[in-house]
């Protein structure tokens, strides 16, 4: 028990965090991150900011560069260009100081089939710099308990279901208290109950002040657990910020139920309010106007208004808008390229 100080002696001092350029409020930051594999640009110009204490959901379709970005963020892959700061330490030099405080589950759990869950976790624990040797069994036991694997801890990993494997990966990330936990598709292969448990674990971490970075292509999951969102598409960040702000900025609208659809649309358009008819009634864009003005205009025009409600853009709409717009643009530019040069990409 007294070895703690003894072991610290003789260790090199931690290099001063590169606090000069880094705002104190960021747990991780990437600047101009780019990764090229051969001729494929996997990630390009990614400036990601993970605020301390946030639960940041990294969203993106398959192949949008989420995992590559995470792998660079954790120093597993060297970026072609750009820089990474993790917990105030610049990678790769600061990795030894940053990574002990980072728990990660990347690209699925990496365990050995012939060892039991507990043995696999003990092997991970042996490599954890911050874990004192006498405390390894307890840390392992508690991590197993936390992900609900205590009963299956003695069984071989070979016989684990996909969900149990994923949980064991999560347990490895939670072996000791972390400042940042990075989870790459944590609910892959989990049933609804398992998904809820992962959400509960993320909520626990958030409540304890841990910063969480979670990547997913499941929008509902992100919407339910995250405070911040970064949307990746084709290797670039197309939007990031607080989830609430993003959703509100995402074109708030007013939905008006009325039998006089045509009259309503005409009246609004005459007053320079963008409106269109929808199956449910009339949709009014609120970027340039306010709800009371819309209602006043409609009433003034003698339109029978049954119901007016604010339409909140869901994450799904936002995501679709961000990624599909890009895709359409990209398709258009592809077509142009087709006209310009012979060879399409």
């Amino acid at each position: 028990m007294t070895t703690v100080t003894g072991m610290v002696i003789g260790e090199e001092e931690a290099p001063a965090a590169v606090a000069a350029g880094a705002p104190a409020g960021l747990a991780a930051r990437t600047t101009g991150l780019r990764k090229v594999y051969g001729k494929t640009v996997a990630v390009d110009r990614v400036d990601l900011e993970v605020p301390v204490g946030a639960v940041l959901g990294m969203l993106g379709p398959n192949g949008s560069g989420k995992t590559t970005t995470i792998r660079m963020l954790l120093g597993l892959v060297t970026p072609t260009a750009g820089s990474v700061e993790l917990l105030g330490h610049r990678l790769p030099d600061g990795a030894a100081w940053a990574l002990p405080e980072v728990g990660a589950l990347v690209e699925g759990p990496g365990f050995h089939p012939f060892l039991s869950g507990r043995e696999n976790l003990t092997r991970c624990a042996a490599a954890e710099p911050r874990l004192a040797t006498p405390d390894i069994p307890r840390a392992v036991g508690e991590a197993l308990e936390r992900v609900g694997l205590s009963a299956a801890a003695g069984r071989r990993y070979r016989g684990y279901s996909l969900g149990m494997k994923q949980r064991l990966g999560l347990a490895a990330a939670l072996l000791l208290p972390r400042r940042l936990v990075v989870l790459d598709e944590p609910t892959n292969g989990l049933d609804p109950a398992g998904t809820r448990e992962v959400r509960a674990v993320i909520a626990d971490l958030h409540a304890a002040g841990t910063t969480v970075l979670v990547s997913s292509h499941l929008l509902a999951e992100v919407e339910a657990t995250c405070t911040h969102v970064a949307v990746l598409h084709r290797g670039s960040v197309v939007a990031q910020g607080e989830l609430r702000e993003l959703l509100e900025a995402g074109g708030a609208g007013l939905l008006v139920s009325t039998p006089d659809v045509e009259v309503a649309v005409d009246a609004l358009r005459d007053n320079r309010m963008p409106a269109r008819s929808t199956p449910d009634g009339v949709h009014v864009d609120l970027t340039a106007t306010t709800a009371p003005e819309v209602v006043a205009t409609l009433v003034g025009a003698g339109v029978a208004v049954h119901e007016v409600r604010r339409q909140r853009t869901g994450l799904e709409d936002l995501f679709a808008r961000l990624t599909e717009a890009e895709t359409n643009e990209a398709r258009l530019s592809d077509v142009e390229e087709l006209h310009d040069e012979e060879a399409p990409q």
Partner: protein
Amino acid sequence: MTTGTVGAAAMPAVLTTTRSRAPLGRLLRSEVRFMLRRPRTLVALGLLALVPVIAGVSISVAAGMPDQGAGPGGSAVEGIAALLEGNGLILPVFVLLLTLAMLLPLVGAMWAADAIAGEAATGGLRNLMLAPVSRARLLAVKAFGVATLCLLAVVVISVSAVLCGLVLLGGDGMLTMSGTTLPFWPSLGRVALLALLVTVQVWAVAAVALAISTWTDHPLVVLAAATGGIITFTVLNALESLSWLHPVLINASWESLGDIIRDPMPTDGLTEGLLRALCYILIGYSLALARMVSRDG
């Protein structure tokens, strides 16, 4: 100082230190324990322990039935058997030289293949890199594990062969190739020396295999390369017209290991073989390190 039960309710209450590296001894123990838990490691060690038993039994059977050796080549078997009869400590020498030709290098290559390429394929390597274990340290830990297992394999064969030799063939000393007879303890010393020299040769093969292992995620590639390499080197070494190439072939050292049962023991060939193996080890680990630091995790 007791830092025992610190930690919030939401977090596991564990002892933490401010180290940036896990203790090296803990990593090495964990690696060796892990390798010994792998079923194919145990199977390989078990089979290697059987080789001396098979060799010992067949020789003692052949020696016990001289009438059977009437056919062509029979006299040769009879000759070896006659030499070994009552000369049990020759068996470990015979078995070690036999297994060094193919079995031991292959087993070493198998462990090297599993150590990096195999671990990369399962994702275990990523877990270690994230802990974090630095790339150079990771390679050192892996190299230590492979080297320890290679040593263990040679020890298993040697012990098994010494026991088989003494039980099946008997004898309390060693009849050398020079015609003299060594007493028991010096004979056992010769066997131990040979075991050590054989281990270094296996380490050399394993070092090169580990270098290949850092370049791929497929352990089979390493094993195929090692098998192909050993066969190619054996052929090259057998071609007299390529004698200018022989000094750089690792298995050129293996023939001179027979010097161990001469009396007095000539050391030139043994030393040269040792230095050649050390060169291979140096080159192998340098290549492995160069690749390891830039490898994607």
